[in-house]
């Protein structure tokens, strides 16, 4: 018997929400903030998974799209506060403004991108990633250059009590955004549109012969992905309570790509692992370096750069040795365990397992 995909996804989301809700109470404020950061990364990384993993379009411009979302949220929030509107509803309105702005920009890039393939697309989006932060300086009157903007936030609702940690409140906001994104994307990729995305990725000629408009699909994929990046960027603004160009460099775009590739190209669960890695790995290396007794100057040098080098190595090793990423390895391990268990046939043979298997990553195809 087949259960409804929507119900299944809703169930999983509700369960995840419950667990995370309890988790935010268990964790201390610092950990809550880390969780919130991972959730903000996840919004953008999940969107990039849809674009790169499922549609085969590589974007290095998602950091820039996040910047667009973040600046839109900052400008909108500050406009609200300038007019004395301090209600809680301003936040979702601003986030929606951020998503819409990023979506529109994504649509523009997507239209150009639909005509481009491979390195041309990567090159164009690379230029976007470098050009967009430069706008903060060029239009310094609005964006305040390198200094950036501070973001006004409505206070924590009084109903939660006076001593409610602000970080926990931020974690709730970011986790809500991430869960919503994941739920929508999970349904989207199981739908007709999701199959269209994969068809275009795997073989454009065949997809077109099957009556799919390749260009339209590619633009739509870019739009969906840009909306997610806008939400992620907006959450960044909410978490840091400030936006500046230095937070949205090319490295951010590369980090998102890393999260998607190392987690597992084309798998939403992979985006979760990747986002957690983006937050935890710098923290771990920092703790490790701090454990060693080093001069402060050397410590400072290692602090930002060691994680960067490790990220790069991970990206290369995963791409060459295990293109399925973490999620691919987990799936393989899961199948191996199930196949080993006595009295039960390997689930591979069951028709249902076919659906549970994530689509093969685009990049591993030859």
């Amino acid at each position, binding site marked *: 018997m087949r259960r409804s995909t929507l119900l299944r996804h809703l169930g999983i989301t509700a369960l995840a929400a419950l667990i995370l809700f309890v988790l935010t109470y268990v964790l201390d404020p610092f950990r809550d903030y880390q969780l919130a950061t991972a959730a903000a990364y996840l919004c953008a990384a999940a969107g990039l998974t849809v674009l*790169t993993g499922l549609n*085969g379009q*590589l974007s*290095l411009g998602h950091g820039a799209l996040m910047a667009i979302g973040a600046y839109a949220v900052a400008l909108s929030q500050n406009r609200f506060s300038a007019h004395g509107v301090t209600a809680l509803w301003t936040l979702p309105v601003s986030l929606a403004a951020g998503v819409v702005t990023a979506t529109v920009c994504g649509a523009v890039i997507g239209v*150009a991108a639909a*005509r*481009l*393939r*491979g*390195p*041309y697309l*990567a*090159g*164009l989006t*690379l*230029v*976007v990633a*470098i*050009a967009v932060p*430069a*706008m903060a*300086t*060029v239009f310094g009157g609005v964006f305040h250059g390198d200094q950036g903007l501070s973001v006004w936030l409505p206070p924590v609702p009084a109903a939660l009590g006076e001593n409610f940690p602000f970080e926990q409140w931020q974690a709730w906001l970011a986790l809500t955004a991430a869960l919503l994104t994941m739920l929508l994307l999970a349904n989207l990729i199981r739908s007709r549109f999701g199959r269209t995305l994969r068809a275009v990725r795997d073989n*454009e*000629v065949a997809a*077109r012969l099957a009556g799919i408009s*390749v260009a339209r699909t590619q633009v739509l994929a870019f739009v969906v992905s840009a909306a997610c990046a806008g939400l992620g960027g907006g959450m960044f603004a909410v978490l840091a309570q400030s936006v500046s160009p230095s937070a949205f*460099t*090319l*490295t951010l775009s*590369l980090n998102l*790509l*890393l999260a998607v*590739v190392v987690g597992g190209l084309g798998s939403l669960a992979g985006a979760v692992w990747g986002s957690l890695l983006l937050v935890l790995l710098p923290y771990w290396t920092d703790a490790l370096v701090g454990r060693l007794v080093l001069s402060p*100057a050397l410590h400072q*040098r*290692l602090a*930002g*750069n*060691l*994680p*960067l*080098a*490790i*990220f*790069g*190595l*991970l*990206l*290369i090793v995963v*791409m*060459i040795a295990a*293109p399925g990423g973490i999620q691919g390895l987990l799936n393989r391990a899961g199948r191996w365990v199930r196949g080993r268990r006595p009295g039960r046939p390997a689930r591979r043979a069951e028709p249902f397992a076919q659906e549970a298997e994530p689509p093969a990553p*685009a*990049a*591993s*195809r*030859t």
Partner: protein
Amino acid sequence: MDRFLFLTVDGLSRGAVYAAFALALVLIWRGTRIVNFAQGVMAVATSYAAYSVTGATGSYWAGFFVALLAGLVLGAVVERVVMRHVEQAPPLNAVIVALGLVLVFQGGLGMIYGSQYLPLPTPYSRVAMTVGGVPLLSRYDLFVFGTVLALMLSLALLFTRTATGLRMRAAAFEPQVARLLGVNVGGMLTLGWALAALVGALAGMLVIPTGLGLHPTAMDLVFVSAFTAAVVGGLDSPLGAVVGGLVVGLVLSYVGGYLGSGTTPLAVLALLVVVLLARPGGLFSAAQARRV
């Protein structure tokens, strides 16, 4: 009018460097159908090597030639150790691996040298000489023109007049047939990468002193400018890369000079979008069948 002349010379000087860098991209593209997104950081790495050597010996030229040598070695090592594994894979993989290299080099260089801007000296003065009362071009500009011209002539000679150049072209154009005829195709690819990295290292040495100085991300903007130049020329044509480089250099010089230097990244973006939408194959491409 004086300013226009000055900006034109400045643009040509910058454009010469972009042309060299674009040429490096074209070399690798023709050989392996890979756009080497790590070209910029590789050039930065060789410039850091030059910085160390110049600092230790006090001689600019010692550093200069060490940078070229380091480029040659680095290109060969990167091809043999890393890129060889993705040359047969779909294009996405190669791009992602090259981007991984970008992170590795940026992190590694940051760890060794720190993230502050380091000064890289120039061998000649950058003060413009006056010609007929107009400050026009500096000795350094002349050095740049001369070096890039010498580089291009030697590359042209290598590819059209020597047996090695013929083998490299054969390996890039028709690998299977070349292999049957006894050409060491793998070796030729390695040589191509080494040469490209050498050209990139040279471009880095020429352009980094004219900017803010040495920094792990010093070549980011140069890379996208050179990529734009290569696309303007069509990625496949060395001549196109040279012309594209000069065009991009001039455009950026005018835009930066008249609208403020902060606008150059936006100008690169606008230029690339216009070229890609109007002539995706570049200005020098013949009509070509597209896959879909």
